[in-house]
């Protein structure tokens, strides 16, 4: 039986393999990962050109920026906190249209998104649609037949029908059949209809999706956003999985598997807020407390290609207590005091909450189980609960209606349980997922997410390329299109390198171009994690390329001198007179051991710019407490490239 299932999984995975973009020549890895199945075929991406270096290119030429995590008034807690914006409003806003926020403020995005996932919840809904549609069983009742006719007439007549219906309810004369639940149409179908209407392939992608909101224990965040590759026809066949049915992620994976088998469609899930899971997001045992198995690791890797590393409730990429020498993790958007209900953390929890540590533990587990359970690429979203994916520092509409722009919002309690409080200023204006896809369609973007060709940003539209291979040389940084060298000589972010040729170490081509409206770049770093000879996971951060290297030489601590700071807090402005608009480098791992498992990912750091609190202070003319950070360094994290001996 298991063989049959695995075979089915294998076939399913092979058949969905989008373009084999990550494939590496000597791949013979497990069938659970799209990126490792097809042998490399560089010609797929890059044919030898004639005069034009660009003819025949089939690789992704630009990243598409989006938010995989948006709630509207249709999510119970968002509605409860006063949000009135609907999924339709949210999609319109994400596309760049002006809408009016719940608090009555006109608002528009500075840089519209290319795609969005509205991740609300589903619930039952009334019978009216059936009356409108003229369901014969309901039409046998003369009142319902009359309402049906009035609804079809539209306009005033339709409104009158509604008023009559409400009146008849008050009088106790409502037809009994109107309450028969078998006619209930789900809000889910209404939601998918909206996404269908606003999905315009090539122009703007509106994904169908929902959030599965598992709060184990007293609010240990195990939430996952489920993203559909397909449209309404498939999505409507099955209702979303809810935590009324199960809080165990394994049951969600089973549900996803059954969904794919039934509909022939494709799903993936993106977990988030490990920082609020009180040690459970990346724990080294199952939800029920059993030891991890190979099968469990395969399932997790199969269904969860990406992890959300930053959003409005802080970042879950790295923690200063786990990475004490990482000066960019220290004090950076940390929500690390408790879980969702702010139940305080106990010692030992944090090591199972942050992705960098999980990537390291993934190597350890792979050694034990044969499969890496935590093979995550990077994603980011807002998790906004007011329908506004407004994560720009100078245009921040916050997570809740209660903290939409107002002079006091920085000082108020954003989350409060007894004396445990998170303050308004602690909310993070982030983030976005950048997807390297060949076109802006559901299928192309989803395939790229599945193969992890993505990077997360703190809200900036910085462009980042990251390729790994064994043959990159500094000359590759000098070509007119570094991507051609990248795809033809290596694998992109999210991919795999296997068995290094004798005497060779992995080389990485990494480049970043700043957001056209954002701050210049301070530096690019590569974060390496590996298993040492004793099987213990290690990490090291390398500064690979930075601006003004002639002036910013490395100090005694081995790090480039700080880039400086041009932020004018009084006016909440900065200048791009420091840093560089673009950085590119080839980096070779200086301490590579071809027998050791490893992963590498790039982190791009911008120069200091005003944080949203600084824009608030300047606009509302308020003075904030000393504890409030006013300056931030926006950043991006690429999906890792893994090396497996």
């Amino acid at each position: 039986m298991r063989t049959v299932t695995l075979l089915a999984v294998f076939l399913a995975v092979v058949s969905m393999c989008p373009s084999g973009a990550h494939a590496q020549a000597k791949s013979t890895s497990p069938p659970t990962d799209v990126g490792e199945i097809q042998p490399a075929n560089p010609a797929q991406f890059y044919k030898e050109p004639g005069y034009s270096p660009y003819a025949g290119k089939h690789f992704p030429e630009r990243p598409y920026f989006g938010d995989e995590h948006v709630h509207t008034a249709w999510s119970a807690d968002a509605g409860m906190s006063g949000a009135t914006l609907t999924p339709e409003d949210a999609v319109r806003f994400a596309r760049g249209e002006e809408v009016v926020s719940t608090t009555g403020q006109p608002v528009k995005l500075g840089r519209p998104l290319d795609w969005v996932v509205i991740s609300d919840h589903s619930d039952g809904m009334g019978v009216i649609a059936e009356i409108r549609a003229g369901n014969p069983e309901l039409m046998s009742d003369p009142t319902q037949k009359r309402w049906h006719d009035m609804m079809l007439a539209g306009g005033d007549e339709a409104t009158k029908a509604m008023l009559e219906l409400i009146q008849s309810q008050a009088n106790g004369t409502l037809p009994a059949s109107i309450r028969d639940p078998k006619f209930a149409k789900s809000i889910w179908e209404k939601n998918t209809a909206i996404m269908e209407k606003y999905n315009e392939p090539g122009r703007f992608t509106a994904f169908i999706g929902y959030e599965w909101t598992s709060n184990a224990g007293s609010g240990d965040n195990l939430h996952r956003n489920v993203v559909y590759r397909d449209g309404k026809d498939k999505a409507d066949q099955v209702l979303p999985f809810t935590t009324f049915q199960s809080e165990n992620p394994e049951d969600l994976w089973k549900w996803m598997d059954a969904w794919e088998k039934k509909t022939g469609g494709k799903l993936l899930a993106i977990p988030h807020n490990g920082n609020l899971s009180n040690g459970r997001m990346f724990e080294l045992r199952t939800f029920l407390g059993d030891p991890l198995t190979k099968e469990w690791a395969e399932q997790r890797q199969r269904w969860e290609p990406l992890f959300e590393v930053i959003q409005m409730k802080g970042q879950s990429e790295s923690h200063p207590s786990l990475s004490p020498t990482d000066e960019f993790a220290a004090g950076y958007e940390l929500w690390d005091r408790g879980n969702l209900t702010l139940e305080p953390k106990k010692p030992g929890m944090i090591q199972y909450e942050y992705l960098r540590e999980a990537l390291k533990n993934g190597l350890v587990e792979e050694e034990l189980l044969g499969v890496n359970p935590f093979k995550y690429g990077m994603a980011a979203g807002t998790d906004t609960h007011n329908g506004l994916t407004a994560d720009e520092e100078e245009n921040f509409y916050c997570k809740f209606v209660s903290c939409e722009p107002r002079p006091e919002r920085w000082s108020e309690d954003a989350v409060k349980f007894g004396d445990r409080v998170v303050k308004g200023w602690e909310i993070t204006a982030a983030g976005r997922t950048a997807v390297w896809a060949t076109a802006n369609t559901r299928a192309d973007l989803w395939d790229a997410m599945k193969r992890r060709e993505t990077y997360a940003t703190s809200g900036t539209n910085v462009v980042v390329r990251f390729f790994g291979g064994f043959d990159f040389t500094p000359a590759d940084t000098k070509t007119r299109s570094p991507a051609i060298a990248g795809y033809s000589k290596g694998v992109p972010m999210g991919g795999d390198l296997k068995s290094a040729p004798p005497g060779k170490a992995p080389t990485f081509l990494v480049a970043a171009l700043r957001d056209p409206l954002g701050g210049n770049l301070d530096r690019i770093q590569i974060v390496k994690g590996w298993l040492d000879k004793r099987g213990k996971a290690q990490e090291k951060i390398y500064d690979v390329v930075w601006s003004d290297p002639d002036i910013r030489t490395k100090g005694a601590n081995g790090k480039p001198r700080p880039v400086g700071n041009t932020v004018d807090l009084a006016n909440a402005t900065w200048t791009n007179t420091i840093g560089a608009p673009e950085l590119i480098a080839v980096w070779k791992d200086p301490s590579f051991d071809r027998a050791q498992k490893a992963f590498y990912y790039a982190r791009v750091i911008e120069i200091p710019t005003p944080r949203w609190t600084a824009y608030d202070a300047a606009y509302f003319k308020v003075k904030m407490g000393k504890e409030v950070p006013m300056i931030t360094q926006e950043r991006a994290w690429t999906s890792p490239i893994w090396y497996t001996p």
Partner: protein
Amino acid sequence: MDLPDLVHALKRLLREPLLHFAVLGALLFALHAAVSPRGTAARGEIVVTRGQVESLATAFERSWQRPPTDAELAGLIESWVRDEVFYREGLALGLDRDDVVVRKRVGQKLEFLSEEATDAAPTDAQLEAWLAAHAAEYAVEPATSFEQVYFDPARRRESLARDLERARASAAPAEAGDPSLLPARLESASPREIESRFGPAFAQALAGIAPGSWQGPIESSYGVHLVRVTARSEGRAPALAEVRERVARDWGSARARAEKEALYQKLRASYRVTIEPADPSAVTAAK
């Protein structure tokens, strides 16, 4: 979705002494009914209709993609009865009142109902009128195809002007540029696409460049560029057939909003709304 607020609200509710009192009262009442000799003090009747059972089974099947077993169905029914009992008892205690979740949810469902009821198909005349009134939103955008060569001022420094001059005069200016992640060419790009990749200054300058030869330099957010516009199509007003889906979507969306508002106004008109001022001696009625 977040739990904190919900949990917070629940915890607060559970700490209400009045609630403890009420629940205790209800329990005593139930106990009394249970132990009373005739046992006829039924709180009401719960009929699990065939339709309800079917609905539970269907909902199960739609999530798990198989029908429930008999045991599972029995469990679903029992769980439904349990919810119903608590729900009714809660209603009897008035726990639905002044509850922001319940109020929002129920109100929302009414809005959904009205949307469903008034969701009608537009006529061509209605769509034509909408298109005419909102022509700018549907205009086919101008499209520009162009090549660009990037020069990095930080790298070129004093030689920048000379290098640009030379490159523009040469047969293959592209060879003279600096490497960059910027696209060397874009095909049929909209102003928005150009702006999102090169910044607003570049997009504006490019709009003034005549097609044909290499021109520039023009500035972007990154440095300076030589550009050659290879094709350009002007914006134009589309026929309805070209944008029908979008027009119908936006027309329907605006109409739904208007009708929801109309429904609200009509319903509100049937209420006399009184807002008590801070000073109780000056109550005013607002119609």
